[in-house]
């Protein structure tokens, strides 16, 4: 859209304001995580930590076993990512590159699950895992990723696969390639960027998941960062220096992953939004 100088100036002012509002909480987080408890509460508020209390981080990390939580979260997230990428890309292949009777009906039925609130399946799923003896283990958080990896991801990859020319498959067939071969050597490598999108979204969803670990994990040594942080808050209510340091540790990996994979994130959202 072409814009006049006046509206451009207005635009910059508004964007500056938005930047302050959206970045402000991050600055408040960093500032509080590096401050003395006494300086935190000064009025009017100060923004520059003096002295810089790096030890807030080491203290926050030792009052609760955040190292263990970090490893737990990493294990769950990595396992979920592998499962999601494998099973959603295989399923998307079956729903786009293989022609079979009833394909679209089955896909539509699976899609309908997207509208279903998670709360409806929550209690029976919990009872099922408990009956199998997997309550208080990582399995309930990981295993579902290996069965489809979420219809949303299948949908996203299928959209992408449909843009790859059919001739590739036909040529491979003529050369005697099997479906598995086509999936492994043609479709999967060609959809690298879409796979990365799925992997990144999956990372965030799993890293940030709160309700899953809350329901399935009981032993503190199995806790994830999100659960640990929540428990921390219950114990150290007014210790804003430690709370903010612990929060910063939980936020940092997400920010890093986002900044590194930024291009893919924005592409991915655009892809899903436009086709939705």
């Amino acid at each position, binding site marked *: *859209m*072409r814009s006049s100088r006046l*509206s*451009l100036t207005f635009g910059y002012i508004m*964007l500056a304001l*938005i*930047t302050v509002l959206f970045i402000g*909480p*991050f600055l*408040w987080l960093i500032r*509080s995580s590096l401050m003395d408890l006494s300086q935190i509460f000064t*009025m009017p*508020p100060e923004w520059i930590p003096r002295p810089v209390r790096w030890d807030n981080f080491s203290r926050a990390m030792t009052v609760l076993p955040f190292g263990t939580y970090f490893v737990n979260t990493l294990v769950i997230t990595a396992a979920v990512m592998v499962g999601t990428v494998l*099973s959603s890309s*295989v399923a998307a292949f*079956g729903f786009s590159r*293989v*022609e*079979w009777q009833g394909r679209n009906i*089955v896909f539509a*039925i699976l899609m309908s699950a997207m*509208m*279903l609130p*998670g*709360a*409806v*399946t*929550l*209690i*029976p799923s919990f009872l*099922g895992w408990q009956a199998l003896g997997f309550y208080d283990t990582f399995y309930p958080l990981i295993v*579902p990723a*290996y*069965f*489809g*990896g979420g*219809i949303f991801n299948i949908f996203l990859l299928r959209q992408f696969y449909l843009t790859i020319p059919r001739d590739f498959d036909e040529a491979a067939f003529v050369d005697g390639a099997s479906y598995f071969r086509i999936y492994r050597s043609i479709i999967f490598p060609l959809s690298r960027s879409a796979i990365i999108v799925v992997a990144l979204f999956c990372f*965030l969803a799993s890293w940030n998941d709160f*309700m899953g670990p809350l*329901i399935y994990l009981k032993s503190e040594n199995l806790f994830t*960062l*999100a*659960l640990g*942080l929540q428990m921390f*808050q219950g114990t150290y209510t007014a210790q*804003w220096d430690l*709370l*903010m340091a*612990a*929060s910063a540790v*939980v*936020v940092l990996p997400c*920010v890093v*992953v*986002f900044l590194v994979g930024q291009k893919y994130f*924005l592409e991915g*959202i655009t892809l899903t*939004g*436009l086709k*939705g």
Partner: protein
Amino acid sequence: MRKSLFYGLLFTAPAILGFVIFTLGPMIASLVLSFTDYSVFKDHTSFIGLDNYIRMFSGADDYFYPSLGATFYFVVLRVPAVIILSFLIALLLNMNVKGRAFFRTVVYLPSIVPAVASAMIWMWLLNPDLGLVNTMLQAVGLPGSLWLYGESSVVPAVVLTSLWGIGGTVIIFLAGLSGIPRQYYEAIDVDGGGWFSKLRHITIPLVSPTIFFNAIMTLIGSIQVFNEAYILTQGGPNNKSLFYVFYLWRTGFRDTEMGYASALAWVLFLIILFFTFFVFRTSKSWVYYEGEGRS
């Protein structure tokens, strides 16, 4: 392309199995459970017909209507706020400004912050005595607020914290906006219309499918608000933020009344189904799809 039912099913088998095991099965099971008085502490479970549903709607449950009310209030405040604000921000980002990529990153970044961490940050910012927000309000002579601790301010405060994460919605709008051909706007320039008539006659109709998509997704997400209630407020003060899914969780997992909680879950399912259907029905009159015209 050759047909192969065998390979088709082989590739999709994990997903189909997953659907049956983790969605369809539990759905049916929760419907069955909703007609029982199942609870971990009871030795004996029996079918009690519609009793759970009667308990809900007859008012015998002191929390059901308050939780519906709190959720409804949250949805009514949040959905329009998210849609309007993210649309406006997307309009700004779609202008011919320098540093668009930077501003886009700024707007999207908060939406990737884990809910628990975001809750911690906002609890501290909105702290009534020492938080930054009240301090700043008082500095310019405005009264502070109890925010998460006030009965009348808790739901708006939760909405406020959730608005920090609207980046995803903004990006989707931005994608919709950038798909509008330039010529359309030039046509209005020729006719002598201003920015408002561009917005009214071109931008809004052409992004209406995106508005529709965002509205549905925000609606479904807002009805299921849980983390905020659990972490920020525990449903308080005085049950004013007792959001539905939080209440469901409390009933099923803290009070272990899983039969009754399953009934709550099914009512939630029907509510979401109803609203989604309702929005779909109304969409015919305001969503414009290119090539179809307005139907």
